[in-house]
């Protein structure tokens, strides 16, 4: 009735518009970046995007992917899940992107993953790390190019278990999915490794809480040897700054997420000792291969700052995709998905990175170390770092299958 598509001017306009997007051998490979460029995730996503831009330039300098130019299409998902779903759909349907990435917040990630599954376009995450995307909300066009939240918490537990003198551990987490998952995974692994350790019942400050004094007091009251804190952003900074007045870092140790951006923003406010950080890809802890050195230099030259964990992961994630495409000799979704579990990729974070077909999880490493001020940098870095290979941290396929079944109920 009102369908004017089949005739008239509109069809002509449509044909003209669509003409440019027709998939041809010389058409560019389109990377859709639907990232949280504003809102709570802005800082992380900006670092990621900066690195992805470098990656795209490098790929194009080498002749692109499969000889086709690489084009980056950027959208702001505003750290809102509905906005994320909307721009993801627009990128896939209108821009005809070949792969979707960029997302940071767990909620936005799940929203975009749902769109990717529905429209059957590959989607990979390099910041957002909720394990729900691997378990009950897994869809075959998704992969996670970094350690997920559970794996990180396992890494922390492994590190803590080696501190024989730590007998009592208090736990704390932001009161949302990530905080709860992390605390539960940490406690579970630590109990297994060190049955002698007492783990205090967790406390959960609300998300974004900045008045941390009551929580510090509660945690210290149990006289723990260390506090595991799945906190982030404002809550973490407040814990470290406010903890000092309570002698927190004389009385106990803190084990928490400590990526390069946090180390930088804490700067001189970082306590001299007793802070242990879990990281995803701290540039100073990577094996300083020529590729890593070149990337750090290039990043610093372009943005006048060091790459953060988010930058390294963003770059590695893109290059992994390029490698999968070269292997598959195609960017067709099904060929890519087949390729990601076939290839073994050597990236900035080390050799032999691959994705498990069962749940789209990459065997990406986690790093845990001690926050220390060093003369080489004007911000503290992690020392005494231990790198935990991904394989040892990944949840077994059986356990995931069981969790999927449990979630179905």
């Amino acid at each position, binding site marked *: 009735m009102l369908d004017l598509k089949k005739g008239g001017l509109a069809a002509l306009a449509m044909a003209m518009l669509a003409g440019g997007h027709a998939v041809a051998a010389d058409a560019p490979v389109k990377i859709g970046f639907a990232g949280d460029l504003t*809102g*709570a995730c*802005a*800082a992380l996503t*900006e670092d990621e995007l900066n690195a992805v831009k470098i990656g795209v330039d490098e790929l194009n300098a080498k002749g692109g992917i499969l000889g086709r130019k690489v084009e980056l299409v950027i959208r702001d998902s505003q750290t809102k899940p509905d906005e994320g779903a909307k721009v993801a759909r627009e990128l896939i349907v209108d821009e005809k992107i070949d792969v979707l990435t960029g997302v940071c917040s767990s909620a936005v990630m799940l929203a975009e993953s749902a769109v990717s599954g529905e429209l059957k376009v590959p989607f990979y995450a390099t910041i957002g790390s909720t394990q729900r995307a691997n378990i009950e909300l897994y869809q075959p066009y998704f992969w996670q190019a970094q350690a997920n939240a559970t794996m990180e918490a396992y890494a922390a537990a492994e590190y803590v278990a080696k501190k024989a003198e730590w007998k009592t551990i208090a736990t704390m987490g932001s*009161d949302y999915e990530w905080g709860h998952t992390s605390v539960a995974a940490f406690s579970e692994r630590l109990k297994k490794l060190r049955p002698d350790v007492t783990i205090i019942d967790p*406390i*959960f*400050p*609300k*998300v*974004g*809480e*900045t*008045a941390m*004094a*009551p*929580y510090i*007091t*509660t945690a210290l*009251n149990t006289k723990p040897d260390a506090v595991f804190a799945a906190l982030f*952003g*404002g809550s*973490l*900074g*407040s814990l470290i*700054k*406010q903890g*000092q*007045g*309570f*002698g927190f870092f004389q009385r106990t140790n803190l084990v928490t997420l400590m990526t390069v*951006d946090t180390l*930088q*923003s*804490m*700067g*001189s*406010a970082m306590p001299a000792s007793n802070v242990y950080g879990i990281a995803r890809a701290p540039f100073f802890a990577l094996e300083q291969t020529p590729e890593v050195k070149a990337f750090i230099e290039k990043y610093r030259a372009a943005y006048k700052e060091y790459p953060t964990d988010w930058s390294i992961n963003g770059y590695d994630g893109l290059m992994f995709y390029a490698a999968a495409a070269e292997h598959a000799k195609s960017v067709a979704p099904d060929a890519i998905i087949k390729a990601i579990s076939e290839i073994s990729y050597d990236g900035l974070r080390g050799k032999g990175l691959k994705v498990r077909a069962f749940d789209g999880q990459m065997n990406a490493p986690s790093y845990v170390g001690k926050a220390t001020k060093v003369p080489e940098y004007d911000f503290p870095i992690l020392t005494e770092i231990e790198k935990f290979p991904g394989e040892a941290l990944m949840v077994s396929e059986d356990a995931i299958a069981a969790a999927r079944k449990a979630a179905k109920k």
Partner: protein
Amino acid sequence: MVLIQFVNGLMEGMTLFLIASGLTLIFGVSRIINFAHGSLYMLGAFLTYELVQILAPGTLWGFFASVIVGAAIVSLIGVLFEVTALRRIYGADGLMQLIVTIALVLIVRDVVRMIWGPNSITVPMPDALAGAIVIGENYFPLFPIVVFAAGLVIVLAMIWVIYFTRAGILLRAGTDDRGMAALLGINERMIFTAVFAAGAFLAGLAGGLSAPYGEVNHLLDTTVIVSAFIVCVIGGLGNLYGALAGALVVGITKAMGVMYFPRLSMVLIFLIMAAVLIGRSLGRQGGSAR
């Protein structure tokens, strides 16, 4: 433990009062719900960050001088905003003023992000305030105690201005009966501008004073504005003493709540707010606005 939590609550309460005082002042006189109050607070924190680096990082005087100068600049920004935007629509529906302040929130957030970037920054703690008073096993951090003292000074200063100066008399006249005040030849516009300047100054002051004790980034505005509203509502909007009482109630309840019902912390203050509002309606048959 209970004592320390009580003190923790008291300290947070004073910070909350500092945040809320400016908001309640502006509302009391001009009837404007200033959504941009959190933005002004955030500007205060960022300006303190810059000024401390120029003046004398780590020193006591450097910190306080930076906070005060920063707050003065924030006050000027507030006046600029009041004169260029708010003043033009005093006649329109009150909601228009709300939208104007929301617009300012968006503008300030992006400007701050353009200047300082999206990452958090750290305002150095003055060395002299980094420690704690230790009694037995109990630690009482120094910095919040000093902020508490500063808050008390501000409360006293506000009481003095409002009750013992000519400006205060004009202010009270304007609040009590605008029409009568205007008839008596009091320039209402001047009062509104002056009050907005004072409110913005208080916001900047609160932002600067709290800066070393937490994270400062371009998203600080939303966190702050919601707490400020809660405090003002519990205390009764426009009521300065009420704001002080409300702030202390919220601070102490939050701190004590951590011990008894930790998972409720997020809803708890809204429950208090709802309870106070409902109580108000029960107390006054008909539940009129003021």
